[in-house]
């Protein structure tokens, strides 16, 4: 009973902190583009005029657009309206593709990003963890040491660099894989068609590969050092004294103890993974958030950039918060003391 109370206090404290932090982050996200030079309204009007329309009452038009883009009133007023609009799911309109809504653009790009990111990270983590487990367990072997050196180097190579090299090798020189895109241009986006799925996987292979290879090293190194440390622990010695087979000791005792920190590391590195994959998408013209970001930068489409930043901030922040809050529950050793 006493334990539950402490847990509640901890959880509430984390939640309050999270909300405050999110609000501040959102405010910053919101304010910055407003200091940007240039006039989004002017751009939109110019675009429409270029298409041949004429405006009778220009002031009325400007007013309407200002309301649409949420530019009326003082900054605090705008922020409050901004927050309420966001909670309704209205992220505004793209400046470049007006009147397409930002949420539409994001909605189109998000599934691709999640697919690429999710699959690549899962593969990379699983592969890196298993290889690292063996490397850590047999840490004296030369193979293990060689792998470590390679992993160390890979660790610092950014995803996009490897992406460029892979494009060169596999797409240009060997022409096995396509240069970019998410699926063949001739196909329609149809999640039920086998052709489409095949094409999707084929096109995702290279971007996925570059993410997997470069992030592999990180998982490998972290579990390797965990296992090396664990190997010397008393309970591993006792497991051996119990007459257990080596594979059983490695999996059921060493691995299980290393799993939790390794999973936490996965959860906490979400931010970095997201950053890296954005650039990879850009290089492969993969229609996820990364490419959208790149294009919006080139066309100065502030609202879209803001929308992307918002989504990433919210999701990464939320994920980190969940992990922070739930971790004590999962690890039987941690108590709810102040960190």
């Amino acid at each position, binding site marked *: 009973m006493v334990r539950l109370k402490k847990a509640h206090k901890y959880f509430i404290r984390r939640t309050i902190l999270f909300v405050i932090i999110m609000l501040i982050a959102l405010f*910053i*996200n919101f304010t910055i*583009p407003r200091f940007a030079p240039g006039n989004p309204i002017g751009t939109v009007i110019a675009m429409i005029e270029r298409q041949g329309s004429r405006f009778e009452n220009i002031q009325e038009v400007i007013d309407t657009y200002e309301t649409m883009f949420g530019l009326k009133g003082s900054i605090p007023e705008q922020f409050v309206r901004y927050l309420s609009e966001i909670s309704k799911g209205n992220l505004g309109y793209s400046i470049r593709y007006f009147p397409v809504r930002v949420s539409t653009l994001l909605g189109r790009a998000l599934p691709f990003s999640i697919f690429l990111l999710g699959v690549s990270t899962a593969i990379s983590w699983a592969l890196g963890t298993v290889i690292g487990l063996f490397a850590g367990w047999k840490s004296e072997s030369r193979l293990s040491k060689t792998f470590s050196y390679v992993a160390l180097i890979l660790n610092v190579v*950014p995803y*996009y660099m490897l992406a460029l090299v892979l*494009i060169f090798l596999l797409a240009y020189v060997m022409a096995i894989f396509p240069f970019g895109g998410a699926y063949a241009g001739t196909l329609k986006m149809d999640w039920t068609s086998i052709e489409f799925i095949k094409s999707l996987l084929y096109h995702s292979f290279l971007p996925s590969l570059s993410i997997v290879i470069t992030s592999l090293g990180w998982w490998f190194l972290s579990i390797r050092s965990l296992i090396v440390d664990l190997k010397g622990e008393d309970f591993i010695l006792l497991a051996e004294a119990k007459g257990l087979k080596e594979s059983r000791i490695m999996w059921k005792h060493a691995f299980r103890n290393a799993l939790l920190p390794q999973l936490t590391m996965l959860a906490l590195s979400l931010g970095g993974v997201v950053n890296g994959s954005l650039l990879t998408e850009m290089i492969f013209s993969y229609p996820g958030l990364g490419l959208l970001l790149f294009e919006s930068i080139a066309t100065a489409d502030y609202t879209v950039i803001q929308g992307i930043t918002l989504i990433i901030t919210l999701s990464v922040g939320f994920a980190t918060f969940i992990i922070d809050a739930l971790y004590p529950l999962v690890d039987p050793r941690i108590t709810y003391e102040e960190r």
Partner: protein
Amino acid sequence: MVHAGRGIREIFRSREFTAGFIIFVFLVMFSVIGSALIGYPPMATVGPPNLSPNNKYLFGTDSFGRDVFSQILHGIQLSLMVAILVSAIDTFFGSSVGFVAGYYGGLVDTALSVIVDVMLVIPLLPAIVLITVSVRKVELFLMAMILGLFGWAAPARQVRSQTLSLKEREFISMAKLSGATRSEILFIEIVPHMLQWMSAHYLYDMLWAVLTEASVEVLGLGPQTTMTLGMMLYWVIRKAAIFRNLWWWWTTPIITMICLFVSLYLMHRGLDRIVNPRLRGRR
């Protein structure tokens, strides 16, 4: 001072650090001596575009007719300058904030911690993108400032927890018992620890700065008036250099950057092992 001499010798005993250091020095020498000898202005159109390496242009020319070799040399210097500047800001400012938060505790600590947590939550790339886009004209110095703005939170947090744990340690209580004043404790006991840690972190920050700067530039948000390594990659992508088989243009910045990253990383790890005795026994 005797400490420093002994310390330097010990640092070089670390194989990792020495390896990184050698690569680093090589890059610096290469860049400095190279630009003294060759010295084409990196941004100037000096010859016909898309030339493969030859006697006149050691690394060939890019699609604008600029000398790739000079761009590399110049780019190394720029990256390092930005890295040093950013790390200086981050490490000093961050450490000070972290230290104040940890040492004085209470309301000061809570307030500062909230700010630090906010900075940590904001996703790096989109935010930097947002700022640089809003500012439109990005110069290198501005880039360094922005990077510095985002990088100080991590050291702040670390220093804070280090300070907190140091506060509890026995030798502080001993000092207090022996009648030392607050500032005496500060300078004699805590600061040397901090300095050690800060120097290891400085290298890590440099690495972070170079990596982040490159990422931002590859997106096209870098300075337009000087050519940095990251911007080279940006133009490589824009001009589809890979598909036009302009290998000298895209391999050279990648190799240079990897050398830079690896050298900084090795040096950091080497120092980290020494500063963090917990890690020393392991292999």
